[in-house]
């Protein structure tokens, strides 16, 4: 069983910057949905997304936004953990779906400066934080929880040179290619993200970044936000875009085994919940299979209803919101969920207002990506 203290957290998304601001906004049911800000809207059928509003001029995109959001989140988490601005020698593991491909797009079409070293995040992390042990993993929408699994493995190592501290981060911003292709596969262009609702129309992307600082042991000098109990990763090797309920269920069972928890121990599930036609059903079917008679016990919520799908960042945003929910006994609602699909009928979704005054100890976090790459984590609160 893993038990690694989480001693620093940082986040930025369309709904807010900073963990406290983001969490409070989500608990109020505030959505980051807005008209497309960085693209020529005449090229798309879908017209909305969940972007961080940081461009100097609306409608004109600028390069380097993914790196900037990442550095913001890592800086917040490092400061929260008391690490300061020099991260030399501390492993920084970054999960992302789309790297700096938006900057590549702007270079290709508009001629903005770009080099191959700008595709990954090592250069930006080195310049800002003197970080030299940096890793960029492009693992689609499960990327930041995959990075969390690798961080956990590093902290499990023994012997000289094994790290005491690892920073895990996730980041993504909209690319025109992915935004366009995601709407292309839906008969009706998606209008908003409505996870698990019978009348949902698909997924819309969001910008976001999140970071956490994990420690090998609790040295007593820092406030511990929560504890990582375990992460499982697998590949269902089934289909490039269609998820496999069996593969997802196997990842959930493995996570429970690693974390030493039973379905009855789980108080909260932070769902992947993309609002995509196939994905929500697969996630719900897997959860019902794994939780069995306890399927109606934990509270469940899907914050992509307010952040949009932040791709590689979404798993870690789920973790940070989940940890705060355990700390405060408060759970953000799933906005726009009015009529759940049959597969999710038994679940105790938080809808309407945030759930408050709850005694919550253990949260499950889900993240699933293209290619059937699944990651499931368990965290414990320190309330």
């Amino acid at each position, binding site marked *: 069983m893993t038990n690694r203290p989480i001693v620093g957290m940082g986040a930025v998304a369309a709904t807010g910057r900073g963990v406290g601001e983001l969490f409070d906004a989500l608990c109020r049911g505030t959505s980051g949905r807005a008209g497309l800000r960085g693209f020529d809207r005449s*090229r*798309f*059928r879908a017209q909305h997304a969940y972007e961080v509003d940081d461009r100097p001029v609306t409608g004109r995109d600028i390069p380097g936004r993914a790196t900037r959001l990442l550095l913001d989140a890592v800086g917040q988490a490092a400061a929260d953990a008391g690490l300061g601005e020099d991260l030399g020698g501390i492993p920084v593991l970054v999960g992302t*779906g*789309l*790297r700096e*491909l938006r900057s*590549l*797009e702007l270079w*290709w*079409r508009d001629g903005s400066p*770009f*080099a*191959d*070293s700008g*595709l*990954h995040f*090592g*250069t930006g*992390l*080195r310049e800002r934080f*003197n970080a*030299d*042990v*940096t*890793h*960029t*993993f*492009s*693992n*689609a929408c499960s990327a930041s929880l*995959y990075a969390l*699994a*690798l961080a956990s*493995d590093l902290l*499990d*190592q*023994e012997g000289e040179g094994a790290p005491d501290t690892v920073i895990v981060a996730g980041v993504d911003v909209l*690319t*025109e*290619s*992915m935004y*366009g*292709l*995601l709407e*292309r*596969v839906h008969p009706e262009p998606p209008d908003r993200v409505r996870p698990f609702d019978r009348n949902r129309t698909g997924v819309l992307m969001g910008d976001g970044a999140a970071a956490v600082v994990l420690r090998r042991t609790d040295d007593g000098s820092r406030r511990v936000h929560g504890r990582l109990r375990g992460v499982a*990763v*697998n*590949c*269902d*090797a089934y289909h*490039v*875009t269609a998820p496999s309920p069996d*593969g997802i269920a196997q990842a959930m069972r493995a996570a429970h085994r690693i974390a030493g928890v039973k379905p009855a121990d789980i108080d909260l599930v932070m769902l992947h919940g993309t609002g995509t036609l196939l994905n929500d059903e697969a996630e719900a079917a897997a959860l019902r299979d794994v939780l069995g008679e306890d399927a109606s016990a934990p509270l469940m919520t899907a914050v992509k209803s307010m952040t949009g799908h932040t791709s590689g960042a979404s798993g870690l945003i789920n973790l940070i919101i989940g940890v705060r929910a355990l700390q405060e006994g408060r759970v953000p609602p799933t906005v726009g969920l009015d009529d759940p699909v049959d597969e999710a009928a038994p679940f105790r979704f938080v809808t309407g207002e945030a759930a408050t005054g709850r005694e919550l100890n253990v949260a499950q976090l889900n993240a699933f*990506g*293209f*290619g*059937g*790459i699944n990651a499931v984590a368990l965290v414990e609160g320190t309330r």
Partner: protein
Amino acid sequence: MTDATADTAVVVSGAAVLLPGADTVRALADGPAPGGAPVEPADHVGRKGLRYKDRATQLGYALTAAALRDAGLLGEDGMTVPAETTGIVASSNFGNLDTVVRALDTIREETVTATSPMDLPNASSNVIASSAAIRYGLRGPNLMVCNGETSGLDAVHWAATMIAAGRAERFLVLGVEPDNAVVRRLLGGRRAVDGGAALVLEARTAATARSATVRAVLGPYRRAADEPRETAGHWALPAHLGSASGAYGVLQVAAAVGWFDAGRREPVRAVAGGADHDAGAGLLLLAPEAARAAETPEAAEAA
């Protein structure tokens, strides 16, 4: 919990190379000759399933099949070990750039309606790793490393880390870079290797249990800000093949296997990145008979 007598070594039990001018680890180690023909994936894995796949994914299929066969893991009826025991770590920096710019060009010039839905999974950079897993039924952890110049050695490191953590008994490690118009523009007119290498990394205990041939033993890996030390006899990709980028580290390990296969016994140090990049990485490779990777004098010195 730690057993002082446990064999924790991670070994190379299979390797494959596909580059213009080299299709074996021995040919790679000797230095591929100029003028080699481009790799044709269909010649290695047939045409079925290649349509709608980008060049990097097609090359990845061919390399995956060759390395799994070399390790005795892929037979006529598929994998010879349970699907969950084998994962994939792939390394590529330029994979899927062609898909991204093609979709972008179509959107800008015609609108999104003219794009192909078949491009959707290929617009996600992990398509190389996940496609290989789907084609060959590998259900262990599946990781795509896009980490710049050190990426290939980093991929080897993460496979070894996950083996040590017990996430899978073995990993297919794939390093591949395609050559195309967007890559050449990004590289200022230079070409990329348009090929790569694949390895099977395995816990030595797992390799021994299935009577696999050990081809090399992994020594310590190090990643830091300083420039890697290149040593005499260090293997390097011939300049005529272009930039190996994310494939480079995997190619170096494959070349080391080629040298060990040919009888060379001294350790080989693979290095990537350095002062011109955000960091450097180094990895020591030891001959198959190295008893315990962490206990050799060379390994201690390199660490």
